[in-house]
């Protein structure tokens, strides 16, 4: 059962030095109750993808073409007024830096209550008590709900962000590197919390991260992105054990392994300058298998086995 279907999405930023095609023809689906990981190095367009789905791109960004079919409607065509009803209530998003995601002049309970009042037209008292319920459900002690954001740690603040989602019961949660800014122990707690949210409310999650190892823990399927394009899509097993794309192989090799004391592997080279991306396959300048064709023609994303897609000339016979 498909909840979200993104078709050939293109997003572009206008800058003084030219236009940046941050998302260049991306297609994928998210099923109901499914957790889909989006993995790629920084700058590959992951955050832009999340913002584009909610249509809250910065002023210089716009959706050039494509469709975002959510629950039967194309969000790209939806009016701004209808979008505000989708945002938060049907699709919510949590962000990378919990330290800056909350309004410093507002108590945390009011962040949750306010969203409930707006989306569910609850009275102030009802909203407050529901908000306190949600906050305690994500592990915020009741005596802290009147705190201001600066009184909480990063992990606690991320819990508040999750509590807002928890209270609004969206069908899809976009989690943009929700654990990147946190230390390891807190990371695990937040991951557990997200899994619980998925299990309890059957929320689908688009889990964005640059860390392939985190994804194995939470995701059902994984999308590998590079420079605004999808390189590979597959189940966690397919991505880990039947890896096809050289970029995915590079990412896997750069995961630190317990017990190994060899130097950490990094993919040679740097992500491309998005103002002048390389022709052909975007990964070819860093690819150990690059051939003449890779430099000229962009490989299409093809299904090589059931549910396993890859964009690489080596896999197209």
């Amino acid at each position, binding site marked *: 059962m498909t909840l979200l279907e993104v078709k050939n999405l293109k997003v572009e930023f206008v800058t003084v030095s030219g236009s940046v095609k941050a998302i260049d023809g991306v297609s994928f689906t998210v099923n109901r109750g499914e957790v889909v990981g989006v993995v790629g190095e920084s700058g590959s367009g992951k955050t832009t993808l999340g913002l584009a789905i909610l249509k*809250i791109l910065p002023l210089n960004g716009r959706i050039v073409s494509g469709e975002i079919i959510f629950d039967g409607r194309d969000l790209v065509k939806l009016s701004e007024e209808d979008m505000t009803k989708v945002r938060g209530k049907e699709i919510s998003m*949590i962000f990378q830096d919990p330290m800056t995601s909350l309004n*410093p002049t507002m108590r945390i309970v009011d962040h949750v209550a306010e969203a409930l009042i707006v989306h569910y037209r609850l009275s102030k008292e009802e909203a407050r008590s529901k908000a306190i319920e949600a906050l305690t459900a994500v592990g915020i002690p009741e005596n802290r709900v009147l705190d201001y954001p600066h009184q909480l740690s990063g992990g606690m603040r991320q819990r508040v962000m999750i509590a807002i989602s928890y209270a609004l019961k969206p069908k899809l949660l976009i989690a943009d590197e929700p654990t990147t800014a946190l230390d390891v122990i807190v990371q695990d707690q937040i991951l557990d919390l997200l899994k619980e949210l998925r299990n309890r409310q059957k929320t689908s999650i688009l889990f964005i991260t640059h860390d392939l190892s985190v994804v194995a823990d939470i995701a059902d399927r994984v999308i590998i992105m590079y420079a605004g394009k999808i390189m590979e899509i597959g189940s966690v097993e397919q991505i880990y054990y039947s890896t096809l794309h050289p970029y995915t192989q590079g990412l896997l090799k750069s995961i630190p392994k317990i017990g190994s004391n060899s130097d950490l592997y990094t993919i040679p080279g740097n992500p491309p300058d998005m103002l002048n991306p390389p022709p052909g396959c975007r990964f070819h300048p860093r690819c150990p298998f690059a051939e003449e064709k890779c430099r000229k023609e962009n490989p299409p994303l093809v299904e090589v086995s059931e549910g396993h897609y890859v964009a690489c000339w080596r896999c197209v016979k």
Partner: protein
Amino acid sequence: MVLILLTLVFFILRILPGDPVRVAVGPKLPPEYVKKICHELGLDKPIMVQYFDYLWSLLHGDFGKSLITRRSFANELIDRFKASVELAIASIIVAIPLGLFIGDVSAKYEGSPLAHLARLFTVATYSIPVFWLGIIFQVVFGIWLGILPITGGPPPMVKYSVRAITGFTTLDCLLNGDFIGFAECIRHLILPAVTLGVVISGIIGKVSRNALVEVMHLDYVTAAKARGLPEKIIHDKYIFRNALIPIITIIGLQLALLLGGAILTETTFDYPGLGTYLKDAVLSRDYTVVQAAVTLYAIMVAVISFIVDIIYAFLDPRIRY
């Protein structure tokens, strides 16, 4: 702080060329007589002694005597100060809504013609001399249209006929139920207040635009949008509320400047405030009056920054004293 300022003013005044007694009595008086006056005013003592005498009497709330009129001038000073306060409040009443409006428009519609117009207004208020603007207003409204008086300040007729309760003539008229007098006072306030208000609104507009734009791009605003909050809530509770601190700061600063007397504007409109008083005192090297006016000014700045600090703590839960 206040002490440093007082000390600086004390010595700078004495370094400046020009002798107050000469100004007061004219050049033709016999030297013995000049000496006598100097002695009377303590000006023949060594400068350090004068300095400590000055601080000592200040501690006792004594501003001393004017070197020119050789009379106590405390009443006159307070009177002038009150007139300046009236003008300051009237100007800020014009400046705050206008400035916030300008700032809001240029932040919200960044890049649009409307925003450019707002920026143009800001630049204009920066570059147009305030007396020039004042004169334009005088010519247009006072002379061509003839609807407003070109001089400012409560008319003496009203000032001396109304029973003084607070000493603020405009307010006294209202308290006494003298609505005609009140209307007269307001009529005389409009041109100087609008002149000053327009100039200050430019500064407030610029500062609030920058503050709003900065907050607009912060993560919690994006997060609020992602939550589907209506634009009004995002603007009021997320953007404006958090941009208020720099805005309040600049308003406080401008108000302090205004209370010290807006010299150019007061001069243009011949307004009987602290600014014109200070100007006259400086021109005649009336040390004690200048010192007193500056002291008053320093106290005002201190009081206002104290109030602004209290507002900060109220606005921003991260600030506690």
